[in-house]
């Protein structure tokens, strides 16, 4: 059912990865992504892969869910693979027309596709183990230094917008479904006809949806005002993010992994 779609893809398994502070997780994600691209030889990239698969294993999220995200970008992966195949130097393995596949190209294609796959896996690990709310809050916190350059309102507004979006996406999805059904019950034909006709057929859905969104926004604004909302200034937060030992150890592991990648890069 459409109404059960939730924004983000949090999966509860209670693993140690789930318990890492969201801020730390975002920073580590950036670090790991950098190192996936720094891994320049077979050994270092295989080590990165090993590290990331360990994270996946520890996260307790079924591998099929990770695979699902990979599948979504499979075309990009294939295109990357094929293009890189022809951009290598070295001994030609197969040649036809003006193109040739070389051992260098094969390596390159392999590296690039593996990097993209790892990138997807590690990003999925973040979204599967962190609630959208925690992510929002972490982003707000991480961006908070911007207040020293006079952007405190922008940061707060961004975070508040994300919170409201998270809350209203399922509501609007459900509403869209209801309006579609109501118009179909009045004989609206949404499936057949030329492209123009189909675009025109969306009007009876988009207009009520727009009106309803405006109504939501207006009523929500009044309700927020009634709950003493006056913007970001002077607000406190119930949830305080506190760094724990888990955050310290996980950071150590990540840094250690990165050092090994550098070492492997130098040695081989």
């Amino acid at each position, binding site marked *: 059912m459409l109404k059960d779609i939730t924004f983000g893809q949090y999966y509860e398994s209670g693993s140690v990865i789930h318990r890492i502070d969201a801020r730390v997780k975002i920073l580590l994600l950036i670090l790991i992504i950098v190192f996936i691209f720094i891994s320049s030889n077979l050994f270092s990239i295989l080590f990165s892969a090993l590290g990331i698969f360990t994270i996946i294993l520890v996260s307790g999220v079924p591998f099929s869910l990770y695979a699902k995200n990979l599948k979504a970008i499979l075309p990009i992966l294939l295109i990357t693979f094929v293009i890189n195949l022809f951009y290598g130097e070295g001994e030609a393995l197969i040649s036809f027309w003006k193109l040739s596949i070389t051992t260098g190209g094969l390596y390159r294609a392999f590296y690039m596709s593996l990097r993209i796959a790892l990138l997807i896996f590690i990003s999925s690990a973040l979204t599967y183990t962190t609630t959208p709310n925690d992510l929002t809050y972490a982003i707000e916190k991480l961006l908070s230094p911007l207040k020293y350059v006079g952007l405190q309102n922008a940061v707060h507004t961004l975070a508040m917008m994300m919170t409201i979006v998270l809350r209203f996406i399922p509501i609007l999805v459900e509403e869209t479904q209801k309006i579609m059904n109501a118009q179909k019950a009045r004989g609206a034909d949404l499936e057949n006809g030329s492209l123009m006709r189909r675009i025109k057929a969306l009007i009876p859905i988009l207009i009520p949806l727009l009106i309803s969104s405006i109504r939501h926004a207006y*009523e929500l604004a009044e*309700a927020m005002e009634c709950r003493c909302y006056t913007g970001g200034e002077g607000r406190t937060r119930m949830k305080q993010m506190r760094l724990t030992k888990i955050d310290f150890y996980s950071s150590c592991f990540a840094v250690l992994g990165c050092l090994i990648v550098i070492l492997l890069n130098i040695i081989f």
Partner: protein
Amino acid sequence: MDNIIEVKNVTYEYVDDNLTHSAVKDFSLAVERGSFTVILGHNGSGKSTLAKLINGLYKPTKGDVIVDGMNTKDELYETEIKRRVGMVFQNPDNQLIASIVEEDVAFGPENLGIEPDEIRKRVDESLKAVDMYEFVKSTPHHLSGGQKQRIAIAGIIAMQPDCIVLDEPTAMLDPKGRKEIINTILKLNREKNITVILITHYMEEAENADRVVVMNDGAIIADSTPKRIFSDVEMLKSVGLDVPQTTELLYSLKKNGFDVSTDVISIKEAADAIEKALHLEEK
């Protein structure tokens, strides 16, 4: 007498299609601290405007609204008045801001700049007060209408208001949800001594009120105890309200020559009245 709210000769005008309309006209009402007042009226009787005037969301065109000695026109008290007079609206979905119950309830106290530990305490207490503590980590989207509305009420209680104004809080709910809300409101009034102003067009919800005010066309047309108000079936019908079926039954009986009192609401009282009338006949 200790009045928490005093509406003094208030007129509220708005402009629509270049015409000036007045939603409430020279309106006066005082609400006693700790009381449970029901305001009845059909759509367009001005009852929702009154609600928004009471917590300063709207400012009177003429006259004054005084909350605990503070005039809603005074910008200095803007936030404090909203904290003391909490508002609950009809559509629960449009009042909940966060996608986790506890974070939503925390929204009000967070806006007030309260210390995190204290917010935590208030959130838990408020959720317990509306019997929703077990849903502390739930997503509002997965709750029923009545449950969502109770979360909205918890979000208001967490600001520790003296008074709660509820603007047709049950209009979008099923009978089960309506009962949940009415019971919650009663509990808050009786146990936490919070002043309650319930705006509704469901007569049954006025059964347990201390006082019922009937509005029509921006003015008060009746102001009395629930029983007195209910017994005046003709007046209620004349302003487009209907009465509980118990009252309707006794009113019809009276019209048909039975000697019954019509100031009853509950099923038990109705049975009492009919039994009495039949016994009288026997004698």
